[in-house]
């Protein structure tokens, strides 16, 4: 039955997309994060579902949906430049075959981030993108969260839907980071969603349940990244809250409740290694790997191309009475070192500019809409996206997710929102100056539905 249902959802994107082409792009987001081909074993494993959806998304946009394109702003230029630069680094890749393999999916992730602001332009479209993005990821968060609440989680245990495939959110630290990053967005959706039916109590309960599942999921992975993520999440949310004492009390109660239910002595032992990283082999090899990367880029300032970590050799000293050993091909375990090692100092500079620019755009939205009752939703969405991106950026210090679609969706969302606000301001300015252009707006703009 589940095979049939998932296939029905997949084909629904094509049917509904015929009347609203942006739905095809939603379909691509779903395929890219939910991975229906790994969740089911029916028809969808037999056809190139991602390729077909990508063709539909691009074709749908160019043939029927090229309205109100965004300004080709600095963010989009930087993302495009990054895509070009990562392609150029292939020419001096230290492991060419594997570099080409990673380029195949990484290039798509980066390029799709440029496409996103062209497709998702109105409030409804941006929200639909967020919801499809979230529910695709929630297919991992919910089962992990529920299983953690019932039986406790465990380090290295994959409790999500995707088993046996090292893709997307199947990595525990990444799962924890993404689950926490979505929490501010869920808080926003609880209050401002246009798409989820406005039934106050059921909607409140649904989003509250999803937040609990996300938190339990992040703790159940036993990833130390989760603790960093929660700290980065709580500080801005507390600063932004109007009732700071109430927020602090609720956060404390929720925190204690979740920790009591979802954690165990094994979890405490695992998390306590944050303070003794030099005695924990997993944490210590990461530090050695980062040192190796610095040495590597000292000799290769333009990077070693995708998957250059495969030539790494690190010597692990004896720890806790265990003998030392030599490890080859250790992953970077840090997004910034990943980009640095693979694409050198120019790549890292562009990448950091992209990230900070996205944070800046979210902040710009907050500032420009702060005193506008009609755009209060945009202001709050800007705050939520800024916090989410900060969580991802902080957690990425321990996970190599520089080219994962989930990260690039978080980067692209503030661009969509800033462009929305720019369109609203542009049209208001045109009306203010008494524009006589026959193409001038005849009705409320940019998705300003009630």
């Amino acid at each position: 039955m589940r095979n049939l249902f998932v296939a029905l959802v997949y084909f629904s994107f094509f049917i509904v997309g015929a009347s609203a082409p942006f739905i095809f792009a939603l379909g691509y987001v779903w395929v890219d994060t939910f991975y229906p081909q790994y969740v089911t074993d029916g028809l969808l494993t037999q056809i190139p579902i991602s390729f077909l959806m990508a063709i539909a998304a691009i074709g749908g946009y160019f043939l029927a949906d090229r309205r109100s394109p965004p300004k080709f702003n600095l963010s989009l230029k930087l993302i495009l430049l990054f895509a070009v630069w990562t392609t150029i680094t292939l020419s001096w890749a230290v492991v060419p075959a594997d570099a080409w393999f990673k380029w195949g999916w990484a290039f798509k992730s980066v390029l799709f981030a440029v496409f996103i602001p062209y497709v998702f332009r109105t409030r409804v479209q941006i929200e639909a993108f967020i919801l499809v993005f979230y529910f695709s990821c929630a297919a991992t968060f919910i089962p992990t969260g529920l299983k953690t609440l019932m039986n406790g989680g465990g380090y290295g245990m994959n409790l999500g839907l995707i088993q046996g495939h090292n893709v997307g959110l199947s990595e525990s630290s990444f799962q924890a980071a993404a689950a926490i990053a979505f929490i501010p967005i869920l808080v926003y959706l609880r209050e401002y969603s246009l798409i989820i039916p406005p039934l106050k109590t059921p909607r409140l309960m649904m989003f509250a349940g999803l937040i609990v599942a996300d938190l339990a999921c992040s703790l159940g992975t036993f990833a130390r990244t989760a603790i960093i993520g929660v700290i980065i999440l709580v500080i801005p949310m507390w600063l932004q809250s109007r009732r700071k004492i109430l927020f602090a009390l609720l956060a404390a109660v929720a925190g204690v409740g979740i920790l009591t239910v979802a954690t165990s002595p094994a979890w405490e032992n695992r998390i306590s290694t944050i303070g003794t990283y030099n005695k924990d082999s997993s944490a210590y090899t990461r530090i050695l790997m980062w040192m190796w990367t610095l040495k590597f880029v000292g000799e290769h300032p333009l990077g070693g191309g995708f998957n250059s970590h495969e030539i790494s050799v690190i010597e692990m000293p004896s720890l806790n009475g265990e003998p030392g050993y030599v490890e080859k091909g250790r992953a970077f375990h840090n997004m910034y070192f990943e980009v640095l090692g693979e694409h050198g100092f120019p790549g890292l500079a562009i990448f950091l500019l992209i990230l900070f620019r996205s944070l800046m755009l979210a902040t710009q939205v907050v500032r420009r809409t702060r005193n506008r009752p009609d755009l209060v939703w945009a202001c709050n969405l800007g705050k939520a996206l800024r916090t989410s991106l900060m969580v991802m950026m902080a957690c990425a210090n321990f996970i190599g997710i520089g080219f994962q679609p989930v990260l690039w969706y978080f980067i692209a969302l503030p661009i969509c929102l800033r462009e929305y606000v720019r369109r609203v301001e542009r049209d208001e300015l045109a009306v203010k100056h008494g524009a006589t252009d026959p193409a001038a707006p005849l009705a409320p703009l940019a998705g300003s539905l009630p």
Partner: protein
Amino acid sequence: MIDTLTILYTSGMVLLVLIKAAQLDRQMPWFAQGGTAKKTARYNWRRNPGPADERPTENPTP
């Protein structure tokens, strides 16, 4: 069991979102967002059709 229910719930929500989003998107005056005068006129006519002879032509007089 949990896995199957999760698939049904999350995929069901995705289905709901795409249907509702398409519906809300159609209600919006798209062509008012930087579309051409011709398209805007045609769109408004379709939403509120006037007499046949007032139907916008392919090249409306400015």
